[in-house]
């Protein structure tokens, strides 16, 4: 390939590029607007953006707000705690400690023995009283 051909090729490349660039710049407003809409339509397909922007943000935010409101209403709607209930709570807590302690569990396993022992303790004073009279 001689130098003339190379320079002519180069000139053609530059000239056609210039014409193309000018035709792009001269695109009418309607076509540009349609291309912008096409771009927005394409961007809706971004992963994680299937819902429109406002919906993607407001649905989770609304759910959180509704949850917080429900918790606050339940909290304020509760009646004042009665002293008996507080006692019950303390008793329940004691039961829990008993249930969780190893020693108390041993006692529960031998509950019949302790019940018999208790009966014997009640019978013994009565017997001694009867013996004293007799």
């Amino acid at each position, binding site marked *: 390939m001689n130098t003339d051909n190379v320079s002519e090729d180069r000139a053609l490349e530059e000239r056609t590029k210039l014409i193309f660039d000018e*035709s792009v710049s001269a*695109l009418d407003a309607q076509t540009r607007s349609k291309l912008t809409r096409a771009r927005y339509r394409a961007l809706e397909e971004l992963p994680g953006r299937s819902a429109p922007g406002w919906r993607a943000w407001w649905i989770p935010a609304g759910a959180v707000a509704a949850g917080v409101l429900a918790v606050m209403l339940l909290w304020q709607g509760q009646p004042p705690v009665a002293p008996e209930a507080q006692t019950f709570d303390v008793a329940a807590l004691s039961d829990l400690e008993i249930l969780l302690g190893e020693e108390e569990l041993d006692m529960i396993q031998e509950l019949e023995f302790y019940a018999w022992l208790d009966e014997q303790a009640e019978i013994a004073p009565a017997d001694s009283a009867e013996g004293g009279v007799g």
Partner: protein
Amino acid sequence: MTLAALMQPTCLPREEGTLESGIEMDAFLREVETRAYRITLASIRDADEALDIVQDAMISLVRKYAARPEEEWRPLFYRILKNRIRDWQRRGVVRGRVMSFFGGQEGGEGYDPVAQAPGPSAGNPAETVARGEAMDALEEALGNLPGRQREAFMLRNFEGLSVAETATAMGCSEGSVKTHYSRAVHRLRELLGEHF
């Protein structure tokens, strides 16, 4: 590795659906949309169909390749666009040319002179006409090229893709790109000799 090194920005995989990836994709599509449209129009000579094809290509890129590195988007986008253009051409070249011929007439029903106003860089009317005629002649000449030569020429010269990127977009080897491009330039010089 030091803490300072860990804090340096690195080539981490792109997180899908982040605001950043959305902004980058928007900027990329904004950059290529008008040029892609003009390349498509030069290939099929039908304005409405060209818009549909460009939109389909943009949607396909976003759906399938948004998570890929940004430097891959351009060749991938033009590969999708090229396939869409070929599909359209296979469906009916004759129908497209007839529609383009009648659709290009101004003053018909629904013609909006404001919307048809020239773009921001338009000069005086004589220059606009001259540019329009030159582009018409160029499109005519491009239409006479074999498909592979036209693709290679438009992607390399109009869009500025490298040989490697053009090969990716065309789905062929870099050697084929060089051959198609060289033949396209020689053929265009023959066809456009009088006008250029």
